[in-house]
């Protein structure tokens, strides 16, 4: 069973002469443990693809399946539950709630899903600890550095039993070394039953993915093939 399947997904905004195709018949399958990067210029449909994959937006045509759940056949309530339980989102601007501590930000999706406060807090502390933020649990977002805020956002995305991590330019405005740390964490998170999709225009971020899919004018036009392996680089000609 794939973690995410998009079949013939199209998205049209507007009507009549003003119609704009954001996505055109996109087919994409992401397997458990796989991290896929979607690269494309501004306006290529990257963010639309992510919001549709995360069931935050409905496709005009086509089908989205998250795990075993065909999203179009779910009720509004079931869809909301799927978003809370199975899908974790990481946004460019972190989207942390300023009035909540790190631990409260991370436990919030679980509590909204009905998990008791104490159990939700325990799960949040585990997620924060995994991201090296155990000592920041009681801090508010404005008491954290940019890199720490983004790690809290990742902890919130992976807390509990998430199966699909969706990230939109997850390193935001972080510098290269912090951006790399974020991608390393996203990469480590996507294993076992957990899969991830990252949309970015940044090739260095995309290169952390197992597979890079190229989007142009709402269509998938190309993708990278499985790697030849690092050996091919290390056996390089000494004259290089």
């Amino acid at each position, binding site marked *: 069973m794939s973690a995410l399947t998009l079949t013939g997904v199209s998205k049209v905004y507007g009507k009549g002469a003003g119609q704009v195709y954001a996505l055109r018949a996109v087919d994409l399958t992401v397997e458990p443990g796989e991290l896929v990067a979607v690269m494309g*210029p501004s306006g290529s449909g990257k963010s639309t693809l992510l919001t549709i994959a995360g069931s935050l937006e409905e496709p005009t045509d086509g089908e989205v399946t998250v795990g075993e759940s065909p999203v179009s056949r779910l009720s509004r309530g079931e869809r909301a539950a799927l978003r809370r339980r199975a899908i974790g989102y990481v946004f460019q601007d972190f989207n942390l709630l300023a009035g909540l501590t790190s631990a409260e930000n991370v436990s919030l999706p679980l509590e909204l899903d009905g998990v008791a406060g104490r159990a939700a807090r325990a799960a949040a502390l585990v997620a924060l600890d995994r991201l090296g933020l155990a000592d920041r649990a009681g801090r508010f977002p404005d008491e954290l550095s940019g890199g720490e805020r983004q790690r809290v956002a990742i902890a919130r995305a992976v807390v509990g039993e998430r199966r699909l991590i969706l990230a939109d330019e997850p390193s935001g405005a972080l510098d290269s070394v912090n951006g790399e740390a974020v991608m*390393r964490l996203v990469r480590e998170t996507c294993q076992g039953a957990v899969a991830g999709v990252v949309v970015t225009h*940044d090739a260095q971020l995309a290169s952390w*993915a197992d597979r890079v899919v190229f989007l*142009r004018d709402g269509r998938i036009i*190309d993708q990278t093939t499985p790697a030849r392996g690092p050996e091919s680089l*290390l056996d390089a000609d*000494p004259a290089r």
Partner: protein
Amino acid sequence: MSVRHALLALLSEGPKYGLQLRDEFEARTGEVWPLNVGQVYTTLQRLERDGLIESDGEDEVGPQKSFRVTVDGAAELDTWLRTPPDLSAPPRDELVIKVLVAIRVPGVEVRDVIQTHRRHAVELMQEWTRVKRDAGPDELSLALVIDAELFRLDSVVRWLDTADARLRRAGTVPASGPPSALPDPGPVRAVEVRR
């Protein structure tokens, strides 16, 4: 890559043997640039001839011969470290030429040519990133070498992205049209003048 100066740098830490120099060179460059021992000994002979290093005795260069840097050698190393490398663009960048040519060849869609090169560059970046990911946190030299490769390839991808956007804006390629819409050769002439 100056093997000559890399060896001077290693010897500036203290006297060393040829084989040791080869092993340390490879370790310091993250084993990305293999070096054969013959190359090490030839370079050492030249450095000694030029008075930049000296050895223990009169013996032939071999595993038992130890070398150390001279005052002139240390000065040469310092000058080299501070001398900017040649960062001017190569006279003919193969990738740039391929894209420029693709604009003019009938039946070839330049954006597809751009995408082929973009995919190749990103695949190489994925391979380097995998090496970086598997490297230990103490493998600093390797991380620095990989960063340099990633930034170089990243600049290739950015140029291709920019070329793609510029061609589209100039109307030389349709948004998603047939390959029959052949471009105006104007941009090529502009570059011919520059070259």
